[in-house]
């Protein structure tokens, strides 16, 4: 299958200018990253501040252009000026701060903003707005002012705004960083729903490990490079390595890891509570002798 996003040896340098407008220093935010995403996948990119994950995200929507290397979105080079409109329509983007990306003064007007820019006919826009708002379960709020919504609701409106543009791929750049736990769950649920039901490719950038346990692929970035890549199970099996890079693992994974270290016969890479319970029950029924002192 043709890949939806293809990144080849992408390098991005931020340049700092002095007062005379000359380059004073350069900072390499993304360093030779190559990545291939298939349509319909749910990809999570992890990493803490300054790991280059947000810079990478902005390349997928042609907001930033490569210093070296190339980025292809649905087969189109982001450096091609003429294709920029198509690229932005193919890869929608949701940003971190919900307040700063809502343009309309009423919820449905904001969702209509993207399709209006694309020149979609009026009746079609109405349909898309309804469909977008229903996907993120915000239809009842269509005539509200965005200022009166909670953070999670605003972020869902932003997602609906992107959905209404009918993109093949949605890049969510730390959409949950400014939200409370309830809002975080709402946003992640909306993203998963889009991926499962509409088969939209999702690229979720975050630093909350709990949000990525169901992803098809997890990519861990550090200092502009890809540190690890694989299924959540594979990545979270490497607890010690993640810890070295000051990255957390989900609490359950951590607990399982500690139990294993103290002698229980549990596999690495446990991601959910149910999984851990299952393993523990199995241990008890088989009456394993190992670690009997801890689990009598």
């Amino acid at each position, binding site marked *: 299958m043709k890949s939806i996003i293809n990144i080849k040896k992408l390098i991005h340098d931020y340049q700092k200018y002095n007062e005379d407008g000359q380059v004073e220093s350069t900072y390499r935010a993304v360093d030779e990253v190559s990545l291939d995403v298939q349509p319909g996948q749910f990809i999570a990119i992890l990493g803490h501040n300054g790991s280059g994950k947000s810079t990478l995200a902005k390349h997928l929507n042609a907001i930033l252009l490569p210093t070296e290397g190339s980025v292809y979105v649905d087969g189109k080079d982001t450096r091609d000026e003429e294709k920029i409109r198509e690229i932005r*329509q193919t890869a929608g983007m949701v940003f971190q701060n919900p307040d700063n990306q809502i343009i309309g003064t*009423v919820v449905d007007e904001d969702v209509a903003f993207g399709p209006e820019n694309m020149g979609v006919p009026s009746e079609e826009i109405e349909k898309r707005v309804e469909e977008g708002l229903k996907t993120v379960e915000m239809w009842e709020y269509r005539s509200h002012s965005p*200022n009166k919504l909670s953070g999670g609701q605003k972020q869902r409106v932003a997602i609906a705004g992107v959905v209404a*543009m009918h993109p093949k791929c949605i890049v969510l750049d730390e959409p949950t960083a400014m939200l409370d736990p309830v809002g975080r769950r709402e946003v992640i649920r909306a993203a998963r729903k889009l991926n499962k039901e509409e088969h939209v490719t999702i690229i979720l950038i975050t630093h909350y490990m709990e949000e990525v346990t169901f992803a098809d692929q997890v990519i861990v970035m550090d200092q502009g490079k890809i540190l690890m890549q694989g299924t959540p199970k594979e990545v979270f099996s490497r607890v010690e390595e993640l810890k070295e890079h000051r990255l957390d693992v989900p609490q359950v994974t951590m607990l399982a890891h500690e139990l294993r270290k103290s002698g229980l016969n549990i596999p690495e890479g446990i991601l959910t509570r149910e999984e851990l319970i299952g393993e523990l029950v199995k241990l008890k029924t088989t009456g394993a002798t190992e670690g009997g002192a801890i689990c009598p």
Partner: protein
Amino acid sequence: MIRDITIGQYYPTDSVIHRLDPRTKLVWTLAYIFSLFLFRSFASYAVATILLITVIKISKVPFKFMVKGMKAVVILLLITVAFNLFLIPGTTLVQIWKLRITYEGLNTAVFMALRLTYLIIGSSVMTLTTTPNQLTDGMEKGLAPLNKIHVPVHDVAMMMSIALRFIPILLEETDKIMKAQMARGADFETGNLITKAKNMIPLLVPLFISAFRRANDLAMAMEARGYYGGEGRTKMRPLVYQKNDRIAYIILPLYLMAMFAAKKIVGV
């Protein structure tokens, strides 16, 4: 709560006036103001009064909301009346000590007072029945012909609607910064005007920085959603004149003719 304030003074209810196209309302308001200056006679003003009362009745907006707008200009109104009443020379009506009220003075003063009151109530009818958004939309579409002489109508309308959207956000932010600075010992209340203004600096600097940051983010978000200016854009709900708008436009010349006829026939 600070976030609950509404911008403008829109009174949400459903009436024929509310549903009129904002362009119709703009044109009507302008014509009404124009007519008040053009036909200076009691008979014409009677026509204007009847129209105003009828429109207020149809709009279903309580009368006290209309009068609210008057509060701001009451002093201006009184001064105007006073000056006109006492300073215009002519045939004396009453004289108390050195104050002289002339017939001409009384006449002008009454017209001035009526004109100002009707002006304000007349435009209040528009702002009370039209959301700020509809107004910007109306202006964008109504002034679209100016595009031909390179007036950036769409850009101005877009800026206005973004400004409207960010007013409550920035107000909330101001509130937050104020509290944060007060917690660190900043004083916004005491002192004379100059010290008060100086004390505003720790409030204004962070507010401006944050506003610029927001503007930057917003520009990026708009670009990411494919915004390239007004060209080739469509509207979800384009403004289309309805039957009621057509009726309103038919009544407009009739009203102006009635004003004119009233002045000619009655003569005062």
